[in-house]
């Protein structure tokens, strides 16, 4: 393998690299299934824009992620995340991950608390935000 690569053109070398990568660092099969099932996770919701993420300022724990109308604090504990936060509006908050969810009521002060949110891709959905009836949802991110 090593000898011929020295005389290859750039394109041939890159094609050989693609083969080597496919052979030695292939995409795991289960990921393909997870990618294919992403379509069923869609939510008909208004997107809550990301405003800030403390990981880009100070990667030290705990992580604070702020979206329009929603502040989150993520604490890593054994077996998952403990999420505390506040919502400017909304009656119920749902933490969603592929294939699962956990729900909490937002109290009168706008605060809520969620336990055992798994590590990995997650999004948060606020229900009962306004009279339109549409949920508000954060983009997906890795927690």
């Amino acid at each position, binding site marked *: 393998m090593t000898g011929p*690569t020295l005389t290859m053109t750039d394109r041939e070398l890159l094609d050989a*690299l693609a083969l080597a990568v496919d052979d030695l660092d292939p995409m*795991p099969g289960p990921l393909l299934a997870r990618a294919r099932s992403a379509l069923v996770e869609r939510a008909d919701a208004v997107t809550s824009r990301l405003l800030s993420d403390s990981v880009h300022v100070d990667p030290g724990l705990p992580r604070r992620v702020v979206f329009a109308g929603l502040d989150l604090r993520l604490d890593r504990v054994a077996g998952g995340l403990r999420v505390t936060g506040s919502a400017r509006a909304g009656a119920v908050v749902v933490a969603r991950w592929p294939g699962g969810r956990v729900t909490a009521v937002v109290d009168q002060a706008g605060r809520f608390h969620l336990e055992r949110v798994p590590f990995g*891709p997650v999004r948060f959905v606020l229900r009962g935000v306004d009279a339109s009836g549409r949920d508000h949802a954060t983009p997906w991110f*890795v927690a």
Partner: protein
Amino acid sequence: MHDRNNSELLLRARFGDADAWHEIVRRYARLVWAVPRSHRLSPEDAADVCQATWLALAENLSGIRHPERLGAWLVTTTRRETLTVLRLRGREVPLDRWEAADAGPTPEERALARDAGLWRAYATLTDRCREILRLAAFAPELSFTQVAEAVGIPVNSLGATRGRCLAVLRRRLGAEVPR
């Protein structure tokens, strides 16, 4: 579905056509996987980042303004989350250095066992070089502008950067010639 273009696939997927969605995944899954892996994220973290990208695309099927540039959109989205997870794991986002990183390459044992000199030489490159070469290897259809935007370097320096990465790769391959 193989002969459908990205515009048609995105439109069909938006209305729930699973076959169209699966075709999009088939076309770009290797490219998306290349992004976190070229930054040395663990397979588990890389899988989470990739899944977040596919979830984000599913949610934004009507928001892709340039379907012909879907590959670049996927790379940009995946790269953003990759850099976040790198910080989450307490690893600095690497600077653009030309010396080999100290961290060991990941699937090295397998490479050693199979005399994969090209992979071993590639694994000693900087994160930036590995990312640029892996994108060039898997998505030759991405233009210089798209790759430059996706990896965050000026488009007028990408050609030279790619050339330097290939030159370093060739040099390291040369150093690997069997004694």
